[in-house]
């Protein structure tokens, strides 16, 4: 059993028993979101109905969309007797009412504790009901292990393993396996980039088809779009697979093992260097030069970095996020001259080693808050708002859930253009909380030497007091 490591802020090695202000969400939720990236799909939690209700509310508040998510509705008695019958009823009911093209089932803590043999149940059910014509993918995602990101990764790996097949290579076709931190907006950006090299991407899962916030022509009880099952089956014909984020490595490798399609893992696509890697790789794969449009975008990013670096230098930033988002943001902020005052994450990952010098740890928002005193910026999902308010530091919402701001699905932080916009967004937060009055009338950057010469610390303290009320609300109009 891979119990998550617990490291706490309360003393070296002293594990705390109580998680305070959770940063982490449970695995089945991540799996459900991955399933929601499949066209006309219906994710199901094998568990009690409350788990589904919570997941549903969480996604609804983040995406501001209807969320198809069902439950096997286990109760105390059915849990003890075994859930096979409930799984069967759930599948038949869903098939009858919603006619999905795909069903994804994720187990929960309850049914894992009992130890249901879901795979066996599914073999029996599909044999008994030949009318069930859609693929059903099951992943084991106990709530008491891992985190959201792990659930997503397992679901994608499970989908690949059960649906992808080896096939003769189609030139120009590439697979993209985005991590759970890649937004629908990011996917749209990536698809455009890849297509501009004359390549044809299959994105799995494709939240840009289902949760990009659009108005469909008619009501649908299933997901409104996403990767078509037929496309998943064709993924074995691609020339290559791009995985985004370390947590997508196992799924990419599973695809290689099953179909022979070679995989390239990009640990991040945020930042100049990371974007350079992507464009160089795409250019090599396609045999085409980088289009003029992106050369211009790169130049704009470089210019943005030149203009903005004054405001980033030596800023202290505290981040709480799922590992690969933490890495994407943390690595980029370091490239911009910031230091990481705290790096708290949710689950075990190679990222913990990448950020070892920064003391990256698995923890909760209480841990993050304890380390974030006097920092210049706190970044986490919306739940960090209370900590930011108490600390009186500027707060940037990143990740999921973001329930108190609009447009979470359309944030773009990948590629040259995404990074450029992120430079501006974060730079503006620093600007808004810096000495704006000093700057008025002075040439741009005129006060910068002051900051570089140790003015920083006292300013941060003053700001922490001064901004107490407005701090958390001052940007994101």
């Amino acid at each position, binding site marked *: 059993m891979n119990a998550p490591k617990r490291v706490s802020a309360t003393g070296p090695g002293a594990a705390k028993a109580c998680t305070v202000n959770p940063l982490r*969400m*449970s695995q089945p939720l991540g799996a459900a979101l991955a399933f929601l990236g499949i066209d006309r799909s219906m994710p199901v939690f094998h*568990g009690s109905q409350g788990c589904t*209700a919570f997941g549903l509310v969480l996604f609804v508040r983040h995406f501001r969309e209807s969320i198809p998510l*069902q439950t096997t509705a286990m109760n105390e008695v059915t849990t003890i007797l075994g859930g096979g019958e409930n799984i069967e*009823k759930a599948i038949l009911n869903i098939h009858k009412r919603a006619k999905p093209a795909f069903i994804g089932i994720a187990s929960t803590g309850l049914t894992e504790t009992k130890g249901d043999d879901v795979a066996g149940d599914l073999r029996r059910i599909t044999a008994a009901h030949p009318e069930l014509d859609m693929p059903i993918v099951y992943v084991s995602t106990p709530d008491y292990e891992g985190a959201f990101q792990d659930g997503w990764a397992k679901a994608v790996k499970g989908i690949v393993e059960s649906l992808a097949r080896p096939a003769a290579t189609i030139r120009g076709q590439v697979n993209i396996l985005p991590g759970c931190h890649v937004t629908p907006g990011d996917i749209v950006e990536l698809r455009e980039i890849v297509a501009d090299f004359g390549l044809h991407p299959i994105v799995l899962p494709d939240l840009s088809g289902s949760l990009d916030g659009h*108005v469909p022509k008619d*009501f649908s009880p299933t997901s409104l779009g996403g990767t078509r099952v037929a496309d998943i089956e064709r993924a074995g014909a691609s020339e290559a697979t791009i995985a985004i984020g370390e947590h997508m490595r196992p799924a990419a490798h599973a695809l290689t093992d099953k179909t022979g399609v070679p995989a390239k893992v990009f640990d991040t696509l945020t930042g100049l260097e990371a974007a350079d890697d992507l464009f160089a790789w795409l250019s090599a794969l396609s045999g085409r030069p980088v289009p003029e449009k992106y050369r211009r975008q790169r130049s704009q990013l470089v210019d943005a970095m030149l203009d903005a670096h004054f405001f980033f230098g030596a800023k202290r930033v505290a981040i709480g996020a799922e590992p690969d988002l933490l890495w994407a943001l943390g690595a980029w902020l370091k490239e911009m001259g910031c230091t990481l005052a705290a790096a708290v994450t949710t689950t075990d990952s190679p990222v913990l080693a990448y950020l070892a010098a920064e003391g990256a740890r698995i923890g909760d928002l209480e841990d993050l808050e304890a380390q974030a005193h006097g920092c210049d910026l706190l970044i986490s999902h919306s739940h960090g708002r209370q900590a930011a308010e108490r600390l009186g530091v500027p707060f940037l919402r990143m990740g999921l859930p973001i329930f108190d701001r609009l447009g979470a699905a359309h944030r773009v932080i990948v590629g040259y253009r995404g990074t450029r916009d992120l430079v501006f967004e974060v730079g503006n937060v620093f600007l808004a909380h810096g000495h704006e009055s000093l700057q008025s009338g002075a040439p741009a950057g005129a006060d910068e030497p002051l900051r570089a010469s140790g003015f920083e610390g006292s300013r941060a303290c003053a700001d922490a007091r001064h901004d107490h009320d407005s701090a958390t609300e001052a940007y994101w109009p």
Partner: protein
Amino acid sequence: MDSLANTVQQVFNEPACGKNLGKSDKERKKGCTQALQPGAAAGGCAFDGAKIALQPITDVAHLVHGPIACEGNSWDNRGAKSSGPLLYRTGFTTDINGTDVVFGGEKRLFRAIREILAKYDPPAVFVYQTCVPALIGDDIEALCKAASAKFGRPVIPINAPGFVGSKNLGNKLAGEALLEHVIGTEEPEYTTPYDINIIGEYNLAGELWQVKPLLAELRIRVLACISGDARYREIASAHRARAAMMVCSKAMINVARKMEERYGIPFFEGSFYGVSDMSEALREIARLLVARGAPPDLEARTETLIAREEARAWSRLAAYRPRLEGKRVLLITGGVKSWSVVAALQEVGIEIVGTSVKKSTKEDRERIKKIMGDEAHMIEDMAPRDIYKLLKDARADMMLSGGRSQFVALKAKVPWLDINQERHHAYAGYDGMVALVHEIEKALYNPVWAQVRRPAPWDAEVAS
């Protein structure tokens, strides 16, 4: 039968519940939770219901014993407001891991309680049971008892693991926990003949604060609100109230009834939604207090206040009438608030084209029938697809519902307003009703509807 099963049975047998009166013994045993349909169920679990009912107690540490799912996926997602302490908004969970599942989670729970007391020093810790520890047999009742004794601080077990039933059952089990462990354990600093309890009001969006000033003007003191904006001590000393009002239909009927039984506190069921309902509630409070010995002039003073407030509310509402008269509204909500909102909307000339009665009690249905005249408008259980079609066919101008179904309306490009617990506006009291009508008007007349319904140029070309 273990103690939890016992309590659940007791709650199902609730004699004051109108629904129960019409049932046979056997039916009653089965309880009010309809058997859930796998693959076609929606709704929160008993733990969710218990948390909704108790989390509004603001100075208590609410500790969820379970895997990260129960608290991590749901914390800080409700709008109960506090006038003081903010500890209730801190998410505490034992976040049990695989090892705990194998060896039991009680040790971790005990240490978690100790950590919370040391770090946050709350007047009490509420420990919520969830499915996994219930399944592996963690005995939170015994553990809380031991922890209370060891730390000299109330540690209250809230034994409502999700899989025992619905949100509504969770509300009631939460009430049982208060009756069993909290109410009557402390004494108020002083009492007055005007002390009341309000039961089943959660101060969502600060609604209680639209009512409290009116009560204060009548010198009526809310000894305890169970549980909106409450402090632990207030709940613990709630048994000294002279009368009680039970809000929100039957969610906490067991608390009201047992407090009457144990402490002789008479109660009535009322609502703060709607002008006449609000007046009726004030009247009833005054009547009960006077019956229990409050100075009789209270009733006259109450009538004076009602007359003034109603006149003010009516004149403010009248201003909306020309713009709202004849507008057709579809009301999809848990039954609890249906009838009171229906009455309120009719007050400004809004036509209710349908209201859901899925979760309504028989009594609620009767009331709706009385208010709306016929049964045709009562919607038993409408599938989202059918609601969408109804709206798309323009058979309603607007939908009022809970947050979950909002996109059914918005995607049909029909105005929508949140009237459930995630809402951001307070609709209770006289001012609240004006606020609700104001929000409806704002939504209906937003120019955005004309914009978003415009055909795209390419579609328009095809059409012309």
